[in-house]
């Protein structure tokens, strides 16, 4: 394979190309995933309290 005599070396050559291809495919498939990170608990609590503060006054 690829003109390489030893099977294990030819396998290594093929695996190098395959693993680089795996990286490309993984990046393409997951390009937009993982960005919508849940905010930290403290941030959630802070936003909640801000909302409370900014609520319009209702007598």
């Amino acid at each position, binding site marked *: 394979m*690829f*003109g*390489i*005599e*030893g099977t*294990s*070396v*030819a396998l*290594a*050559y093929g*695996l*190098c*190309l395959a*693993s*680089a291809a*795996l*990286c*490309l495919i*993984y*990046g*393409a498939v*997951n*390009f*937009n*995933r*993982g*960005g919508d*990170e*849940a905010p*930290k*608990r403290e941030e959630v609590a802070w936003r909640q309290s801000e909302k409370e503060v900014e609520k319009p006054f209702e007598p």
Partner: protein
Amino acid sequence: MSEQDATLIIITVIYLLACAWIGFYAYTKTKTTADYLVAGRRAHPVVMALSYGATFISTSAIVGFGGAAANFGMGLLWLTFFNIFVGIFVAFVFFGKRTRRMGHNLDAHTFPEFLGRRYQSKFIQFFSALVIFLFMPVYASAVLRGAGTFIVKTFHMDQAMTLATALQMAMLIYTVLVALYVIAGGLKGVMWTDALQGGIMLAGMVILILYSYGRLGGVVAGHEALSRLPADLEANAAQAVENYNQKTGEQLTLASVTDMGLAAAALRDKLKPMSEEARKKYLAENPKEDQLLQKFGAIAATDPKGVASMAVVARLQRGGWRGWTDMPAFNTPFWCFMVTTVILGVGIGVLAQPQLVVRFMTVKSNRELNRAVPTGGIFILMMTGVAFVVGALSNVYFFQHGGEIAMVRAGGDSDLVIPTFITSALPSWFVALFALTLLSAAMSTQSSQFHTIGTALGRDIYEQTILGGERRGTTVLITRFGIVLGIAVTLGLAVKLPGSIIPAATALFFGLCASSFLPMYFGGLYFRWITKAGAIAGMCVGFFVSMFWLFCVQMVNARFAALLLPFLNHPNPSLILQGTWRFLDALVIAFPLAVVATVVVSLITRKMPEDHLHKCFHGVR
């Protein structure tokens, strides 16, 4: 001054100015501790991936390991596979995402701080920082020495002064240049310059592989010629012996000449360290050995390059080598060194490299890591993959253009194989570009090493352990001081170290990190039941078993021992045990023992507090 030299100087000046500008810009954008230590946790995915790759790949991977591939052959591509699959894919997807999130949760700024806070242990932070501070300079000094030698040769500095002075001056100038943007710009300066340097490296290596395959008639034709090369060399050497027999009337066989060549090579190695007078005296006292050298010299004279090449190949074959496109024979010294030290040591050791792990904490979310994976994978393929293929194929080129193999053309110094191939086989304009590629590779690795050594000393050892916590506004100053001290240690070591230690020093540090840090790092990311005592036990077992194996067990003629000997007074510290298994890398022994220690001690000791574990694993998935 030749046109090539002028081009090189102009592009080097432009490049250095660009690095200086980036360093200054990073300086203006560095306001907080997080800016200086983890690039503000807002790095772009491409910058992060190029920085990770360029830090990972030094001149040692291209010139040192590429030159080693001229001997070992394309079997080293297993290392490239590990580099891409483990070093990029597994590292980013299975380690990076968790490290990033947990690092944010724990507000960790360095790898030792990450480990220390994960296990609530100042000792872990201190000890791991100490291991980094003591051993990373060995790796850094090997990179520095490689860069110094390269600068001396490229800019012909040895023509104006002695080689030793030129080397010291080159290392000093280069260190000052790198230090400026590391100290000023922190990790932002390091990563942004890394991205520029990574881009240059990528361009250089793409051109190199295209030209190399082109010069040998294509991918398959080049590989086939390399597979045939041992037989071609043997045919040439047999012809040389035949010519000698016809000339002298003797009846020598190729096998007897090969044995003679091996004996002559061993004798030359023995005589090498002697002075001219001592050598003459020794040969006068041992006339048989003198005759051996003369006779082999006479045979070699019929075809000096061919016979010298055959002698190198015969020597390789004695160690278990079976060709440039085949793996060495199982369980031979060659196999053990190649598989355990180079492929496993470096291939797996990458997962626990402090200067790489910290990169995961520089990005905002997992999306950035997902986007960084393709750049990282292609980058590594084009670095070590190209270097190993070109290193091995250079044998074919030199055989076709002079009837010798690469090691003979390079005068027996594997570090010179790639540079010799570039100047012989590629166009002159590329020589300048490749010089810049190597300079970029060295500087990108070096800058991160200086930054990591400095943060280990300044942040982890001094501030967090000795001072007992952060003092407002002083972290950056203390880290800068740590970097200066780390640089001084590295420079001192680089002056003292012997040559040709680049691959060994790289493998040593990678293996040591894997044995000492990987069990608790992986355990900390995935398992809640690993305890503080278990982590400490694993780290200590990994470190001390590695040390024992390196200093007390491994063979004296190995590269490791050659590396460590200057620091020992014992004349022969490692000839305690005999047998092929001595050639196994420390990682193979120390890592499993460290894993066992981590697991066993964790099972019998007190669990970590639940609220702490909840904080660590918050949002980790």
